[in-house]
């Protein structure tokens, strides 16, 4: 038996969240006295896959079938199920991404496995039970879940596990084929449209986030948010009222009914801190709140705060960041 780690790649690179997953899988393997094998999906290079050794992976399987470069739910599920049979994997670890969750849920039925998504910590295996801690109530709480089946699938929340790096270690890259047929690609996307990122950072993977609320007074003022984000190398985000009135696209909406993020640094500008918004950000390591209302509830959830006008404070912060570098 071994641990099988699903590694997502794009443009030849292993995604940051998948480095975290690889490190998680290797640590679980060490806990159980076995090794971790990865199965790579998406567009990868052999050199980058071999570097997964730095996260503790011993072997990487890669199917060079060109149609696997884009996500296809059925094909990916079959690929990973086949790899799991070959490796006799009892535990499969993947990212809690739109790919990982879609594949993980199908796999759990196919392999009769118990599945935990949104997992934030390494499992506890003492006492004969296999228990993982996962985020629940949209960031307002955690639940410790017992995975009862012989096979287990764990989807790890982004930015919850720090990826370990042991420089110089390499993994063996082995070619692999799942013998996929045309029928497995029947639900392939007909078109993939990427957002214009303009050198920006993707919010779900970001380790720093600058976020704006109604206090920004209008979309025309978002350059202040973007300037600070750019200086910091951060992603931009917003509160629900802001995306509701279309000042910003909905995929930037952080909160209970948007996305939950857990960056190292979350800077909230002109956001009062409604309970639904706090749910989406309260697993951030450091929270900074800038608001002219000293009574804004967000200050209670913050590590650092500035009571002041965002239009005055933001340019000062951007200038101070530029002075650092």
């Amino acid at each position, binding site marked *: 038996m071994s641990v099988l780690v699903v590694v997502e790649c794009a443009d030849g690179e292993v995604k940051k969240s998948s480095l975290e997953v690889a490190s998680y899988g290797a640590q679980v393997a060490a806990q159980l006295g076995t090794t971790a094998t990865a199965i790579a999906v998406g567009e990868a290079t052999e050199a980058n896959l071999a570097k997964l050794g730095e996260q503790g992976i011993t072997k990487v399987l890669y199917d060079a079938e060109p149609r696997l470069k*884009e*996500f296809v*739910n059925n094909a990916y599920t079959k690929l990973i199920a086949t790899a799991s049979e070959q490796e006799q994997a009892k535990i499969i670890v993947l990212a809690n991404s*739109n*790919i990982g*969750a*879609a*594949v993980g*849920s*199908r796999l*759990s*039925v196919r392999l009769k496995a*118990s*599945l*935990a998504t*949104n997992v934030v910590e390494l499992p506890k295996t003492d006492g004969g039970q296999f228990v993982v801690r996962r985020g*629940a109530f949209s*960031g307002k*709480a955690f*639940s*410790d879940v017992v*995975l*009862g*089946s012989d096979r287990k699938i764990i989807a790890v929340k982004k930015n919850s596990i720090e990826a370990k790096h042991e420089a110089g270690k390499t993994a063996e890259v082995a070619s692999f084929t799942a013998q996929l047929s045309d029928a497995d690609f*029947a*639900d*392939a*996307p*007909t*078109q*993939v*449209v990427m957002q214009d990122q303009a050198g920006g950072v*993707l919010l779900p993977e970001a380790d*720093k986030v600058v976020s704006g609320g109604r206090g920004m007074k209008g979309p025309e003022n978002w350059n202040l948010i973007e300037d600070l984000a750019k200086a910091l190398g951060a992603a931009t985000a917003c509160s629900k009222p802001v995306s509701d009135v279309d000042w910003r696209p*909905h*995929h930037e*909406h952080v909160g*209970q*009914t948007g996305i939950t993020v857990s960056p190292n*640094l979350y800077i909230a500008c002109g956001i009062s801190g409604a*309970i*639904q918004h706090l749910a989406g950000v309260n*697993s951030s*390591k*450091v929270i*900074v709140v800038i608001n002219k209302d000293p009574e804004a509830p967000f200050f*209670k*959830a*913050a*590590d650092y*705060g*500035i*009571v*002041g*006008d965002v239009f005055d*404070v933001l340019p000062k*912060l951007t*200038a101070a960041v530029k*002075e*650092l570098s």
Partner: protein
Amino acid sequence: MKFLVCISNVPDTTTKITFTPDNKEFNKTGVQFVINPWDEYALTRAIELKEAAGNGTVTVLNVGEADTEPNIRKALAIGADDAIRVNAAPQDAYFVAEQIAAIAKEGAYDVILMGKESIDYNGFQVHGMVGELLGIPTVAPAMKLDLSGNTATLEREIEGGKEIVTVNTPFVASCQQPMCEPRIPNMRGIMTARTKPLKVVPPVGEPARTTVAEFALPPKKQGVKLIPAESAGDLIKLLRNEAKVI
């Protein structure tokens, strides 16, 4: 076209989450339950598509005990035609998926819709499990859904963009914004909902594969360190030298 819309009964988004003293169960005292906000997109879009086609039915399905019926009636008031309640507490995602798959199969539904995830369990699992149990495609999370005959065109959100996916019925999709503007019940809807059929059926299938051992709340913050607005730049020094995050 037969639509099956799966709804879950969740604490209102303003709820302050607390647990029983042994941390084994969610404390429901004084909590207002609502239709899961993500499921509202599925419900409204199904009604819109039925109206646009001029025929078809929308059935709403909930796995829950009798206390979920007010929200099932609300879904009927919004415009669903009939409802099924599987009389069991939703033990875990797999258990719920088994119930949905059994009902979808029996009723030969063409389009099975639900929200992206529930805001209490946040599993993001049920749609994929239902698709796999039925051997049909799942598109999750979908931001747009259009139907033309038996062919659906969906926009699926991916990190940093979207995919256009075309599938034939039957299929499963999980829904999120900006698919539609969720409707609220009007007075006529509320009146007619009272007499719409609501069937209660017993659960089927295997027991749950996961159990919750304990709940926990996030650690409390130590308290905020305030920096005067005049010397805002000092914040950046603190973030580098004290918090070490930049």
